[in-house]
């Protein structure tokens, strides 16, 4: 039990640490899909591991044991995880799920608010020009999506650069980028170790939109110039106004890195290795979750073994035949345990 859990934990830690770094070496569209899929899988696996460890403690609660018809003394004797650790996992699991739900509710509320604001703003899939000097441009994901741009931003850009801006925002809408980042952010809410991965996804979707604008216009430099000019203009107009809290780490960030990537030649090659590495980490953590699950199943089956003394008596081991039955069922259930493994001895970790 401890073995597969440790392996799974290490694989999850490795994904959290390596994911963003490997993602940077992939093409942005591939990086987005792979990192989001990985982040969601890791978030689910985190919940699975904590639930598996937690259940070894929860099953020992008198009411739960009675409901599952498990023998508490047997559970106590064969418990594969220290109770304090299992209890901690249960508490963390509850926190993770609650925080995940809270993050989901907050994101939904933001979408509803955005929907209300955009409802009156002209037809969907059109651009909406707001008459204000404040330079801003963004795409809204709700409805069929709208591109909002202010006259302040339009005046800052030359006509070909405006085309780059529109192509960039159109790509965000066409590829549903808001949903990819939402999935990554929710995964990070469940498992905070995925925070860097979620930020890498935000960056990857911006790069994706940049590259798709560059491909549509057949001009990488033009997109780079549009980005740099827009960012400098936004910055100049913001002087003297307070930067909204949390604005730095949300969207459109890291403009210099995006500009530099556009000015560099198109990245080539070396896609297979990072993909294999990330897939490998996910496979390892999934396999160890499977093993851990089998161990927990066995642990509970054992305590609920159909030999009467164990189920209801709760006393010491019954007659020898029961014990032999038990050992047989044990050996068939868990193949990696040596034959004759004593049932009632507490395992050393």
């Amino acid at each position: 039990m401890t073995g597969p859990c440790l392996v799974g934990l290490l694989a999850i830690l490795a994904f959290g640490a390596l994911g963003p770094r490997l993602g940077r070496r992939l093409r942005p569209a591939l990086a987005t899909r792979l990192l989001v899929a990985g982040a969601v899988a890791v978030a689910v696996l985190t919940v699975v591991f904590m639930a598996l460890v937690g259940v070894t403690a929860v099953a020992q609660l008198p009411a739960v044991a009675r409901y599952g018809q498990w023998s508490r003394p047997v559970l106590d004797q064969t418990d594969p995880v220290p109770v304090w650790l299992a209890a901690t996992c249960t508490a963390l699991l509850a926190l993770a799920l609650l925080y995940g739900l809270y993050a989901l509710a907050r994101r939904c509320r933001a979408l509803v608010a955005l929907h209300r604001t955009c409802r009156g703003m002209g037809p969907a899939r059109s651009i909406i020009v707001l008459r204000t000097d404040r330079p801003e441009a963004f795409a809204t994901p709700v409805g069929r999506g709208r591109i909002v741009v202010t006259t302040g931003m339009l005046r800052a850009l030359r006509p070909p650069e405006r085309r780059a801006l529109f192509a960039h925002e159109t790509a965000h809408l066409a590829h549903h980028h808001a949903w990819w980042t939402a999935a990554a952010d929710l995964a990070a809410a469940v498992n905070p170790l995925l925070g860097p991965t979620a930020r890498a996804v935000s960056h990857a979707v911006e790069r994706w939109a940049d590259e798709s604008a560059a491909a549509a216009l057949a001009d990488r430099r033009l997109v780079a110039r549009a980005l740099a000019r827009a960012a400098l203009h936004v910055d100049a107009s913001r002087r003297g106004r307070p930067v909204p809290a949390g604005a730095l780490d949300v969207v459109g960030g890291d403009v210099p890195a995006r500009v530099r990537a556009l000015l560099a030649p198109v990245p080539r090659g070396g896609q297979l290795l990072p993909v294999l590495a990330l897939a490998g980490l996910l496979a390892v953590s999934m396999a160890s979750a499977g093993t851990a699950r089998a161990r927990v199943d066995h642990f509970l089956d054992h305590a609920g073994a159909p030999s009467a003394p164990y189920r209801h008596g709760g006393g010491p081991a019954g007659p020898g035949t029961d014990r032999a039955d038990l050992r047989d069922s044990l050996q068939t259930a868990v193949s990696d345990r040596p034959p004759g493994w004593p049932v009632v001895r507490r395992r050393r970790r």
Partner: protein
Amino acid sequence: MDDGRRPRGTLEQEVVAVLATSARPLTPAEVRRRLGGPLAYTTVMTVLARLYDKGMATRQRSGRAFAYRAVPDLAEITARQMQRLLDAGGDRTAVLSRFVGVLSDDDEAVLAGLLRRPQPETAR
């Protein structure tokens, strides 16, 4: 000055941008000049007519042609709502796909340098 490729669908957006940033109504010829590039007059005219049909532009007679203007305004309230949306931070801004985010002081210097840098003709 501009002979870059134009992806499908962005022409209409560009025309809206030209109309919105102009102080007075524009004829198709003027729109075409401001857009730059090898665009056919009829193409621009078609786009303008479509915008008028969609209710995204108004028009008035100007000599032999129509002069077009972006829909007067999407109400001042919308700009204020947008401001609130953008200044809220957190999830309110996370759901928007913003073109550019906030820069640090270092970023500013880097970008200004990149814009000033002469453009080499061949890729490295």
